[in-house]
């Protein structure tokens, strides 16, 4: 079983450490002209897992009251993600990170410092909340990365509603420079009544679509994300048809199986569709995407529950720190290539597996 990386924390053995963000000692970062984080030396990290847990140049956060530290950005992860805010305009029935309205500008500051100090060229996810709720902070982040010549590629998970403001998208474009950015924008319905109901917000559908159109005007690439639930599984084909027929800049479609965490837990019985029942709909949408040449991926579907012809489209997990294999998977021959389940899928949220021989 792959241990979720960010579930693993490290204890510190340096008494003089203070709560805050640090960068693990690294020889190449010193020459950068950036606002540096304080450096933590290897000796201050008290773990027997040095090689697999944390590496030079990683950004960690130390909590003095618990004497533990956790990784913020690490080169050991296949998907680094930064939470920049907890605020959001939508109230999705299956929200995995329920919004919080308090002032959390510190998250933005920390994310910027982490990105600058980590200084990677790999893709780092920006998530929330809704990263563009605070437009000014979002632009400041992009501007600062550009100002300090940071080359990090970003994947921004956004509901896209604020992008319906063309001036905002123009401002974003000015701050991006030559940076590679992709937008992950969820669309849960092919009509406003369906989408707005699932995200619990009026105007959401119209604004999100306008946002995608505006991004298109600036050549920005979008990954459309769909979570199949009871309400929209019958319309999955309509949603995909709508997307591939209407937008040129949607280069990828990701179907994300429901993650039983946050509000999705509360509404689980109302929302959840077993994978066995999704197969027929997934089959339809994959054929459409193949016909239109749009790449499609299935996230978080255990391989054994998918029909044989769908398995090739399944991606191994969303984030390494979120995926999990129940004990039934121990004998499975394909565990290494299977996405498994979300870490939060325990007990009633777990479907029975059929291990491959």
């Amino acid at each position, binding site marked *: 079983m792959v241990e979720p990386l960010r579930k693993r924390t490290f204890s510190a053995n340096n*008494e*003089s450490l*203070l*709560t*805050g963000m640090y960068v693990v000692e690294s020889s190449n970062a010193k020459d950068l002209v*950036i*606002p*540096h984080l*304080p450096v933590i030396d290897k000796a201050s990290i008290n773990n027997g897992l040095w090689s697999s847990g944390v590496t030079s140049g990683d950004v960690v956060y130390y909590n*003095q*009251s*618990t*004497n533990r530290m956790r990784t913020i950005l690490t080169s050991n992860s296949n998907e680094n993600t930064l939470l920049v805010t907890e605020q959001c305009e939508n109230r999705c029935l299956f929200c995995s990170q329920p919004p919080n309205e308090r002032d959390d*500008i*510190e998250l*933005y*500051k920390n994310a*910027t*410092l982490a990105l600058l100090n980590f200084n990677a060229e790999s893709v780092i996810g920006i998530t929330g909340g809704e990263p563009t709720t605070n437009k*000014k*902070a979002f632009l*400041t982040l992009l501007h*600062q990365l550009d*100002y*300090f010549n940071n080359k990090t590629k970003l994947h921004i998970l956004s509901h896209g509603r604020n992008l319906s403001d063309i001036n905002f998208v123009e401002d974003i474009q000015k701050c991006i420079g030559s940076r590679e950015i992709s937008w992950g924008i969820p669309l849960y319905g092919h009509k406003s009544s369906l989408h707005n109901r699932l995200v619990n917000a009026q105007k959401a559908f119209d604004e999100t679509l306008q946002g995608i159109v505006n991004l298109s005007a600036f050549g920005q690439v979008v990954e459309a994300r769909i979570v199949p639930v009871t309400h929209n599984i019958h319309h999955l084909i309509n949603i995909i048809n709508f997307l591939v027929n209407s937008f040129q800049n949607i280069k990828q479609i990701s179907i994300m199986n429901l993650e039983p965490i946050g509000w999705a837990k509360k509404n689980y019985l109302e929302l959840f569709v077993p994978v066995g029942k999704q197969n027929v709909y997934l089959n339809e949408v994959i054929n459409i995407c193949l016909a239109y040449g749009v790449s499609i991926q299935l996230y978080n579907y255990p391989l054994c529950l998918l029909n044989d012809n769908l398995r090739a489209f399944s991606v191994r997990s969303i984030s390494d720190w979120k995926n999990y294999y129940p004990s039934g998977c121990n004998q499975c021959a394909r565990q290494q290539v299977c996405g498994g389940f979300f870490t939060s899928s325990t007990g009633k949220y777990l479907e029975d597996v059929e291990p491959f021989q």
Partner: protein
Amino acid sequence: MNKKLKKLATLISASFATNASNADVMHALKPKLLENDSLSVSLLNQSVSQILAAHRSHSSHGSHGSHRSSSGGGGYVAPSTTPSQSQTKKSTVTRPKKQADPLGQAPRPKSSYPPNQSKDLTSTLKDKEKRKNIIMRMQLALQFEGLYGGAVDGILGPKTRAAILAYKKSKGISGEKVLDAKTLNAFGILGF
């Protein structure tokens, strides 16, 4: 009530005692506080945020009622043998007189201390690179606060200065200094 006040006075004076960088005093102080008066300890600690506790070198200031080490749950290590004469006794409610001595000094009034006696911070700020880095960290934070529109260049110009003061004001922090420990703590910038 009287007893509580006495304890409070002890604790406040403790912070001054430690300023003398007397390790023995520190050692003698910690276990007693933890054993005898954990309630008071936690109360006082709560009044000092993590951020405020960051620049502990600034302990000469009266507002720093506590020290990092006493709040760092789990980080506490048993005291060395040097000051432990009193500690060898089984911990009881009564306080050994010997130990109370260094702590018994009446706290001197704040005004007799210059606000920035921090040796660590002073030497840090003398290091050009470190000083520049601290200013850059502040400028970056101020940009997100919407108080500063200039470049993050590490130069303490009039715009930066004004922005820092505006930030201090918004956080309810008194004083006109822009690079003292209190200000850096408000920004959450750790010692370097």
